[in-house]
């Protein structure tokens, strides 16, 4: 007899992630749960801005249809439940859309839950005190405030499952909690059991970035070779009741699950590894034991936990102006000297047009546009160089000047300049993200249920 394990699969690591491996996990992963993570730090605020401008924007993952069409038939066949944060600023709308797809696939009486209650834009200034990044009062953000949302934990998802939901779609929930909720529900873990929740949330963190743990963010030819890197499988965790697990992927997929891929993901976006704060528990990764027990099978044990903090993290998005940017390029002998003259011309032109910017950056892609000041100064000249120009401004009118002056370089600049005809808006709005803390008891998640 093998001991009972819970099979949890990854369906996405971010909004733009590939859909095919999610479908493969649903079809061949023999999953009890398929979990989707689709948000970045600024996703909620960006969705708020878009919703204001575009009344037709439904406010949930723009790839919701693609993802659900790809996985639902397999999930229905196997009885795989789905947990997802694709609800963004409209979990109820997302749940109803999922119900639509369930009916399309002929599934009746399937219960879908929407988890909301984390959006606190209208009361964030009353509920919070200081900005974590700079110690200033959150009141200083008032004039530019776009949106504020709390990172909810796994508990409301667990409650939705207890009430019979087959699919749970939420707004902002801490990424690892999406993956841990099924463990809490299936194994009956208590929300204050920091030992098991530490292990579970640690596993959630290993899963939340999808193929990043299965070799998808790993290959470096000759140093770290990865088989078939065009054919990655998303991760599967075979979780045991004590929070130990084996990480693996669907057989026959490319990529790799090794001690190295797991270690890289374990500390991804982690600061102090002994104190990784989540809404559910404080995870301690320093006790983790990893063992390669077979090809593409890593056993993860002894991730530990400490009691959760009395506060929840709030993400506050603010309108902070605009970025204008563009690029043009040079090639052949002397590419860099022409690029350098182009930079000088642009600096002077920005004075002529009185560009009012908080910061301007003119870099040479191929030399220093990515790593900035640390880039070595003693390297041979590249054969091709792009001049990349960016400025941060208070108004869109100022940001537009960047692209307009790059336009000028087409015939009023340097010999042998290469340039694209502008085919898209070269300005974008900045949604700056700040953090604060809110007392846990001030936040009440809400559930609503729909049925196909």
């Amino acid at each position: 007899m093998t001991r009972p394990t819970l099979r949890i699969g990854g369906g996405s690591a971010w909004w733009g992630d590939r859909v095919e491996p999610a479908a493969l996990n649903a079809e061949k992963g023999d999953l009890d749960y398929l979990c989707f993570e689709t948000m970045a730090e600024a996703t909620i605020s960006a969705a708020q801005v878009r919703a204001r401008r575009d009344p037709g924007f439904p406010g949930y993952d723009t790839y919701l249809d693609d993802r659900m069409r790809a996985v639902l038939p397999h999930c229905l066949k196997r009885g795989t439940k789905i947990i997802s944060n694709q609800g963004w600023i409209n979990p109820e709308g997302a749940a109803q859309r999922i119900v639509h797809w369930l009916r399309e696939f002929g599934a009746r009486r399937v219960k879908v839950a929407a988890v909301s209650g984390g959006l606190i834009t209208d009361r964030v200034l009353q509920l919070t005190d200081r900005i974590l990044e700079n110690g200033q009062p959150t009141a200083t953000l008032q004039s530019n405030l776009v949106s504020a949302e709390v990172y909810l934990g796994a508990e409301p998802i667990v409650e939705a499952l207890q009430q019979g939901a087959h699919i749970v779609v939420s707004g902002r929930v801490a990424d690892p909690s999406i993956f841990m909720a099924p463990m809490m529900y299936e194994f009956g873990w208590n929300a204050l059991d920091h030992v098991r929740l530490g292990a579970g949330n640690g596993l959630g963190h290993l899963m939340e970035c999808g193929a990043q743990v299965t070799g998808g963010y790993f290959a470096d030819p000759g140093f770290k070779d990865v088989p078939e890197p065009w054919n990655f499988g998303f991760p599967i965790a075979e979780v045991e009741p004590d929070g130990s697990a084996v990480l693996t992927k669907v057989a026959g997929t490319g990529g790799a699950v090794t001690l190295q891929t797991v270690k890289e993901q374990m500390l991804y976006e982690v600061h102090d590894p002994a104190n990784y704060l989540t809404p559910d528990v404080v995870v301690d990764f320093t006790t983790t034991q990893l063992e390669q027990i077979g090809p593409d099978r890593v056993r993860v044990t002894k991730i530990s936990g400490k009691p959760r903090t009395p506060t929840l993290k709030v993400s506050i998005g603010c309108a902070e102006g605009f970025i204008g940017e563009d690029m043009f390029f040079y090639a052949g002998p002397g590419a860099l000297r022409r690029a350098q003259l182009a930079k000088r011309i642009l600096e002077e032109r920005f004075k002529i047009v009185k560009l009012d910017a908080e910061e301007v950056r003119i870099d040479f892609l191929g030399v220093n546009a990515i790593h900035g000041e640390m880039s070595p100064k003693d390297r041979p000249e590249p054969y091709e160089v792009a001049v990349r120009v960016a400025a941060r401004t208070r108004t869109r009118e100022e940001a537009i000047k960047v692209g307009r002056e790059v336009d000028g370089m087409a015939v009023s600049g340097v010999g042998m300049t290469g340039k694209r005809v502008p085919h898209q808006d070269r300005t974008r709005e900045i949604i700056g993200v700040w953090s604060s803390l809110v007392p846990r008891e001030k936040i009440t998640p809400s559930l609503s249920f729909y049925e196909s």
Partner: protein
Amino acid sequence: MNVLLQHVAHCRSGDKGNTSNIVVIAYDEAMYPHLKAQLTAERFKAFYDGTVKGPVERYTIDHLWCMNFVCQGALGGGVSRSLCLDNYGKTLSAGILGFELEIPEGLRGRLRGMRSGEP
């Protein structure tokens, strides 16, 4: 013998606000003590001079041969405000692959990605 870090360890960076964390993991248990002794937070900060503008703190998990360098002021004011082309700092970890380490000659056979004729 002097070798580049890329032969000894692998890396990944992650972003949170204006802070980048860069994980450096030894390929081999025997390499780890040399890595840990030489790649201090101070030398790491000096290597990223000008690009990492704030303090650097180092955390280690010895039994997994891992070090985590938490670098404040590394992301141009934060992902959404940064004017850097790589505003998430995804490529930042690759920089440290060029850090020079001194490794005992006896460990030559454990180096990754060595081609004949390379120092």
